[in-house]
């Protein structure tokens, strides 16, 4: 457990419980519309593209690319003294999510847009593991 984590802790809702249960197991869970195949994130019990109420959860590849980021030079309390990247990763399945990039220097030189990344889960409590991403082969 990352006992030193002092940041905000997500509270799952009924619609997102599957995502966080998956994260705890080390799986990145998304949803797909049973009608139009649209991939949905964050989870909800219908498809925002076609309003179909039948959607299925599935385990995503966990792979994506670095879409954009900033390097925050004024970290909030609980995030240490060093600048850290707040990143947007575009998953191979389509959705984008906010995350941090780990196992990588937090510099513009090391953080190259479109570089391939893969999910790596960081436990912050007994129940919640945050999906973060690291360079593939990095």
């Amino acid at each position: 457990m990352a006992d030193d984590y002092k940041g905000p802790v997500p509270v799952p809702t009924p619609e997102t419980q599957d995502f966080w249960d998956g994260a705890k197991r080390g799986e990145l869970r998304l949803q797909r519309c049973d009608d139009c195949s649209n991939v949905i994130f964050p989870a909800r019990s219908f498809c925002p593209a076609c309003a179909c109420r039948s959607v299925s959860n599935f385990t995503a590849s966990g792979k994506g690319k670095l879409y954009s980021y900033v390097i925050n030079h004024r970290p909030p309390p609980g995030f240490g003294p060093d600048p850290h990247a707040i990143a947007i990763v575009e998953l191979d399945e389509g959705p984008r999510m906010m995350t941090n990039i780990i196992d990588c220097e937090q510099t513009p030189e090391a953080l190259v847009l479109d570089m391939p990344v893969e999910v790596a889960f960081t436990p912050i409590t007994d129940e919640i593991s945050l999906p973060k991403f690291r360079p593939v082969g990095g």
Partner: protein
Amino acid sequence: MEPRSVAIVGAAETTELGRIPGLSQIQLHADAALNAMEDCGLSPSDIDGVATAGEAPAAIAHYLGITPTWVDGTAVGGCSFMLHVRHAAAAINEGLCDVALVTHGESGRSRVGRGGFAGAPASLAGQYEAPYGLSGPPSMFTLGVLRYMKETGMTHEQLASVSVVQREWAALNPRSTFKDPITVDDVLNSRMIAYPFRLLQCCLVTDGGGALILVSKERARDFPTKPVYLLGTGESVETPMISQMEDMTTSRAFRVAGSRAFAEAGITHDDVDHVMIYDAFAHLPIYGLEDLGFVGRGEAGAFIEARNTAPGGPLPVNTNGGGLSYMHSGMYGMYALQESVRQMRGTAPAQVPDAKISVCHGVGGMFMASGTIIMTNE
């Protein structure tokens, strides 16, 4: 409202009532909304107006997959929804939207996913953005800019030129907070806040206020001030989560609001004499010039660097100095409106000669919402 001009055609409650611990508060809104759509045979793509209270209209619209041209978040307690219906009737009569959806949902007993403000731990932003070490707008509003730079080739120097040009305007305004000239090098050597944004690319934090009084054009003749007429208006929302924008290099809300306002005004971009674009950060005039259609995709950085928006240039933008140099209290839109009014009255400190049409474009949240007001003095 003209009697019988608007009717309620769909109506429904949530599938269950009483205790519903299996649904979060926002899902209760959606459940009721989907049921009402089913009641009258509509889908979210048919809806272009959203009114709600208890949750933000942007949150409801995005959750349901709606791109609104009208929203109303009037929140006055339990009778809010009566007001929404009344406002929706006015909006429909005015052509701001064709199909308005008013939603209510409240997990009052089970209290599941009950937020109230962005970032509550059970909100979607609280689950999927807050844990990643955010320090407010400087670390979030700016998130798409590196992507924009990669896709368009905009340089750090071009982005820095936004701050330089606006400081030139501010120098002409005695009420500006900052008036001393700055260079591109000054901007690029100022303290790093959230790469690629430095201090001089972030807005001020100041105190202030403003107010506007509007009357009918008939009444306007009774006042001693020069009337400034509303020529065109537009609004939209996208998402309260910047990470969920459909494209982080352009604002859908800007495009919808702006095109709506231009169409209503019946003008072309060549007709515009003066522009205000809400500049909480230096990339907002870039996005605004492109999303409003003043320049093409990827052209705004070079356009500003070439002094087209500077004093003496053909398209004066943010002539008060903007949020970067004039002032920024947190909700800056009022100050952009005030400057457009001054320009139309002919009383601005940095007056644009013979200006007849002003476009005033605002943002809400972090690309969450947008409103465009086009004014004229003729």
